[in-house]
């Protein structure tokens, strides 16, 4: 099939500018970048229809090769309206972010930072604990944090009761 250089080039510029803007921190530019990328994608779908042709309105004197391929057009039509709904949603997000934090910027996720900075050492797995030698007295050498907890079973209480009776 024939390649339309203008369309290819325009698509390239749309994608390049779109990607460049999406990678910015300004939310407005990110939204604009998404629009530009969707423009580029739309052009790509358009190109799959091949050479230009007649508008796809059926007329008796035209054969099916004469029309510009209607299938990509149907796909594009839905894509365009969906992109609009998506942009409206993203704008609402931008506004919300502005209302809540007076921010028009993508900020780094502090939770990710915290995860990245945490040490490998995990007391649950890596602390040295002595082997326990009984199940009934709170453990031979349970770590301090756990020794503070009351024994979960009331065996000790029962034992004391029995001793008192004896």
């Amino acid at each position: 099939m024939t390649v339309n250089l203008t369309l290819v080039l325009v698509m390239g510029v749309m994608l390049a500018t779109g990607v460049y803007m999406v990678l910015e921190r300004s939310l407005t530019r990110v939204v604009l970048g998404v629009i530009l990328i969707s423009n580029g994608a739309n052009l790509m779908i358009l190109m799959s229809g091949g050479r230009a042709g007649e508008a796809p309105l059926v007329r008796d004197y035209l054969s099916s090769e004469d029309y510009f391929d209607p299938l990509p057009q149907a796909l594009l039509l839905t894509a365009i309206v969906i992109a609009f709904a998506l942009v409206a949603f993203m704008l609402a997000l931008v506004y919300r972010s502005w209302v809540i934090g007076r921010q028009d910027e993508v900020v780094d996720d502090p939770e990710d930072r915290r995860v990245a900075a945490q040490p490998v050492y995990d007391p649950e797995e890596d602390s040295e604990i002595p082997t326990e030698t009984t199940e009934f007295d709170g453990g031979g050498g349970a770590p301090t944090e756990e020794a503070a907890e009351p024994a979960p079973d009331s065996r000790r209480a029962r034992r004391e009761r029995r001793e008192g009776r004896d």
Partner: protein
Amino acid sequence: MLTVLAALFAVSIVVPWIYHRLGRPTFFVLAGVNLAAMIYVAVTYLPSVLSADQGAGVGDPRGPPSAVYEWLPEFGVSFAFRLDALSMVMSMLILGVGALVMLYCARYFAASERAAGPFAAQLFAFGAAMFGIVISDDIIMMFIFWEITTVLSFLLIGYSAHRIFARRSATQALIVTKLGGLTMLVGLLWVGELAGSNRLSDIMAAGPELSGTQVDLAVILVLVGALSKSALVPFHFWLPAAMAAPTPVSAYLHAAAMVKAGVYLVARFAPGFHETSFWLPIVLGFGLATMLVGAYRALRQTDIKLVLAYGTVSQLGFLVMINGLGTENAALAGIAMLLAHGLFKAALFMVVGIIDHESGVRDLRVLSGLGRTQRPLLWISVISAASMAGLPPLFGFVAKEVVFESFFEAAETDGGWFWVVMVGVVVASVLTFAYSARFLWGTFATKRDDEGAVLEDTRFHGPVDLVFLAAPAVLTLATVVFAFWPAPIEAMISPYTDLFGPIEPGASITYLALWHGFTIVLGLSALTWVLGALMFVGRRGIAAAQERVPALVDAERSYRASIRGIDAFSQALTSRTQSGSLGHYLFIILAVATVLPLVAVIYVKGGIPTPDAWIIAEEPLQVVLGVIVVAGGIGAVLAPKRFMAVLMVGLCGYGIAGLLGLQGAPDLALTLLLVESIILVVFVLALRTLPAGIWTRSRTSSKLSRAVLAVGFALAMMGLAALSVSARSERPVSEEYPWMSLDIGHGANIVNVTLVDIRVWDTFGEVTVIAAAATGVASLIFVKRRDVRRLTVKDIPTGSVGRVLTDENFSPSQVREIRAARSFATVAREAWLVAGRTLAPEHRSIIFEVVTRLLFHAIVLLSVYLLLAGHNTPGGGFAGGLMAGLAFVLRYLAGGRYELEAAMRFSAGGLMGAGIVVACVVGIVPLFVGGEVFQSYYVDLDLPLFGEHALVSSVLFDVGVYLVVVGLIVDVLRSLGSEIDLRSEEENRDTSDYGHGVHAETSAGVAR
């Protein structure tokens, strides 16, 4: 047998409720259920099992009892159960010991223990899953039950979840046995694939014929599963740690369940696969190593429960060796030893549990004098430990004799390495004798401390309950009885041993008995006793020697080191890749999206295709439009101000609409033009409260890398687009669309007929997506409710809407201007717009109001025309809806939010809901008249004046689309328009100064 299995699981599910009602006596019920199941299985199936041909598959009338229900026939997976002699013996052990463990639990747990209900359920289900393992004939079923025991063992070991030791042990057991289990699954599936069946009975029947590297490797994988489950070296460390579980669990785990599953697997596979290349080296090598390591470690322990735990490790090595040997005698010996071990080990654990329960001490350096004070415990322990040591006249001795005999005949027949094995087994048995003696001494002897003073007697809190003693007593009794009367055991095992041949033709077949005469084997036994006794006598010296020898390899330490290594790796990976910056993630994603397709292109089949032809453009105008679009894109990147960038992007959109039109797509051009116009308005509405300048802080270096990535991505996509267009070889599917559209869809506009008829499901999905997005917008702005019913127009004071400015905000010339506007606004005259008067005069534009008044109805009419005519000419629901939406945008911009309310009285949600309902009805109605979903119907009308028309039902679908799109735009206007107006006005009133600088330049002029 399926009934028994189902009943056991059903009981385990209701146990928590029963426990809630009955409390601790629930364990009696569970013991009863286990006992009943055992008796039922024995009475119902024993005769038919013993008389059956053990090798016969499922369905063979001579075979053992079986039950098969289809599950996934296409994968060869079924609920297949088969009860042969081996399964029978294992079932008796599992259910019998299970009943006694339950009985023991009834005294082990305090009456007030609340967490014991779920525990009882887990322990009971654990036994049921073990029963499932041994009766499964399908490898998938067996694997499922196998993994159920793994998960339940995790819960049981971690019963004392408040203790870090229990949590850690539980996790460790889970990881180790899971690793083995998954390896085993691969092995099982592989073996099943090679044998052509997922049935164990078929696999075993096919086993001897299978040979080759594949079988050898698959069997290794299966054995890894068995080794990990049975805690053989190098996986042995999880079992001693698993004693963090309550003692009844340990007793069950070590004696009859979990670890015995691995031995069972070896015994199950031995008939068919003991001749594969790696079977004997693995089974004997790892078995012997485990036996020696376990026994050696057992000698060092000071916790009597740990002595037993390492003893189990040692015995498991022993069991795997003998069960894997693969001769007729070894099979008898292996199963007999398995039973003997189950009996004495369960009893010994229960004794330890009683001591721990009553005194709170398990340290053999502290325990003292129990032999004098607790006679029943002493007798039980002496008999069971003697059985463990292999002393007559006990069942442990009977089993060990035939084990020795099997190894000895193997060594005599095959020589070589088997002699090493024989010697190793004898050495390990000496160690076993020594640790058995040490266990008895450590638990019951009266001891002296280092100064020679007699230790204080260990005191029990009270007399030991008879029920508490019953379970170990019964087990001990069985140890004695079966020594003198091994006939029933032998009768149960012998059908299984028939699956093996003798070690060589004519070799003598052994039998279970206390007395085989004066044989070399008896001499070996005597040798182990003498050496073992000597070791016990010299225990101080041995302990001192053990102190001096450092542990060369500590498997648990290596395990923890590897877990820590994995942790460190994942931590490093996470901190490198998860920086928290969205741009960073996008950068990575886009970089992959750039590189990956290029790699695919390089490996494309038949070389990179070259396009048939290049053209610069379809016509010169395309180039002009292209230049505009490119300029818009670059302008958007460079624009310093927010709205300038928005305008530049809008320019791109308009240019592309032109390109679409030139290409031959009028519908697209129309739709895109409308969308771009609305997007411009929406952008302005949403962002008017934000500062004008675009605030960016990104550094130059990142600008460069972003530019490189952007250009690289674009070039890759351009190449890809050119390439895929060139590579196309099929004719387009849409070649059929013109006639389909006309004859089936009854419309001349192919694109529209495609949307509402040919590919109507796509459109239907899209409409719902639009409704969802609009709802998302509304929920982000309104937060609580959408479309709050506002005051009606007549309630609004004139000139109150919008930011009402005072004269100080304006320059003198502007003040004069505003005064003029105010004087006009108060003139009592019929208004152009219903709510125009509500706006503050400084925001009104008389020209705009007049134009809106003139255009609004025309635009709405045009939108209806586009909707209805779209079936045959450019237009349709989308274009029509957008056009109508634009009319409402005009009303809102000219007259403010009350004008919008007056123009559209329905809620946006209602509009979209109605649209979706219409679309649904169009889809469903054909079903009632015998058609398919979304089938279209039409009526030919010949009306005077209007001429001939075909009314098509799918146009109604387009009405639904129209309503949804109008709803979307109204929703967006009410959210991003009216609601934000309201909020900024309130904000201005509340803080008269705050935000003034921000709003002054942006919002003041917007309403114009």
